[in-house]
């Protein structure tokens, strides 16, 4: 089973996770820029974070044979802090980078006017830089949040096929299915979605434009739940090809729209200078 996790925050994960993910079949990941639990207070702090998403983290992933790409944005939560909003001015230089395959995570947290402005402005950046957009949907007041999200997406002029609306569930999937946007589902140990519930949605709505991610981060989450979902699909009677579509070909097609997804030589031996010190615990 080859797995592409289209949404996972590897910065928060250990090398043990990379090893377990690689062993489970995860060969490529996309790490969206988001918040870090501890609120940041200045654009410089974001610049260091973004630099890590296009510098150190892809290198670290490469040591384990995992290909790493990123999405870059000011997340909705921190868009509310006036000290962080100048981050929007930093984005253009990152949106030109090879490893950046979408603008994201953008969208709503509490649906404030500040979030409206950051969301619309960053959808315009996605259009200007010819990139897809990864849209987070709020955890609270979710239905209204998804409806408002879809209205802003429609108004922005971005092609719906270049947008993934993420963190959907049984209630919100219906709102997005017919819009032409891609549908993202985060499989979590307790909250969001579980593998059996995900299988039910795939039965009901089919496997097209469906993206399954672990969204693993610094909270209670599990980077192997993509694999568990693939196994649950097989047990439920889906074919190997269905699993490959959902866990590999769909994310490749979605992020491939950036023209920057580089999955070449994934089967080649590990990169230059194998045996680097990070495998041994750092220098």
């Amino acid at each position, binding site marked *: 089973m080859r797995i592409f996790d289209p949404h996972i925050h590897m910065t928060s994960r250990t090398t043990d996770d990379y090893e377990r993910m690689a062993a489970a079949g995860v060969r490529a990941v996309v790490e969206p820029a988001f918040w870090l639990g501890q609120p940041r207070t200045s654009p410089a702090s974001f610049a260091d974070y973004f630099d890590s998403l296009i*510098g*150190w983290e*892809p290198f670290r992933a490469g040591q384990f044979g995992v290909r790493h790409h990123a999405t870059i944005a000011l997340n909705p939560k921190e868009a509310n802090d006036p000290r962080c909003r100048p981050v929007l001015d930093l984005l253009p*230089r990152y949106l030109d980078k090879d*490893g950046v395959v979408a603008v994201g995570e953008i969208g709503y947290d509490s649906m404030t006017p500040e979030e409206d402005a950051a969301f619309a402005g960053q959808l315009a950046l996605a259009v200007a830089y010819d990139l897809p957009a990864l849209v987070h949907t709020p955890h609270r007041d979710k239905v209204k949040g998804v409806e408002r999200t879809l209205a802003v997406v429609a108004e922005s002029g971005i092609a719906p096929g270049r947008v993934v609306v993420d963190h959907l569930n049984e209630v919100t999937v219906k709102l997005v299915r017919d819009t032409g946007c891609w549908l993202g589902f985060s499989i979590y140990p307790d909250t969001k979605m579980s593998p059996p519930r995900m299988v039910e949605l795939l039965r009901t709505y089919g496997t097209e434009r469906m993206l399954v991610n672990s969204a693993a981060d610094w909270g209670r989450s599990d980077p192997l739940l993509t694999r568990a979902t693939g196994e649950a699909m097989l047990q439920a009677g889906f074919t190997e090809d269905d699993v490959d579509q959902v866990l590999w070909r769909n994310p490749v097609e979605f992020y491939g729209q950036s023209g920057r997804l*580089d999955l070449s030589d994934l089967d080649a031996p590990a990169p230059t*200078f194998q*045996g*680097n010190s990070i495998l041994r615990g750092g220098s």
Partner: protein
Amino acid sequence: MTPDRLRTALRDVPDPDWLDAALRRVADEPASIDRFFPAAGRRCGRGPLPDLPGWTADEAARALLLTALPRGHAEYAEALYRHGDAAEKRAVLRALPLLPIGAAGVPLLHDAIRTNDTRLVAAALGPYAGHLDPPSWRQAVLKCVFMDVPLAEVADLDDRADGELAAMLAGLAAERHAAGRRMPADATDLLDQLTAREA
């Protein structure tokens, strides 16, 4: 290395017209390098160049873009390094000996050597590392051994390695021996040579 050799080695890139146009534009309008520099991998490819062992197409194209900057604009190299992803940083490091900047690029070497990215550490120890002071250079060579970066990546190693470096390598060898771990073969060879030279 010279700009002419880079240019010749890049003659078969997928989009040579893009590169030619970018080089002309950078010569006329230095600030335009900001957008050409990150795009070079997408336009010129990232594979090794058959005629230029040790160079990839994106690296060579980026180095060439830097050499196309008009005189007095070499400070762009520092900004492109500071704002670059790992491949862009590496290209700046490799271009430093080709730029009319004297020793002004040394802070970039220190930055690269501080990282834990083997590609950057190796690129910092090319010919431009002649500007590094001896203590920094020795520490960087020792770090290569520690990170398993092949010592063949280090420019002027035989001429520059001295008794002090030998003592540092011997210390590392003793620690490795005590831990039941091996030294890389090229480091053991270097230590043997230096020990024989001192004797």
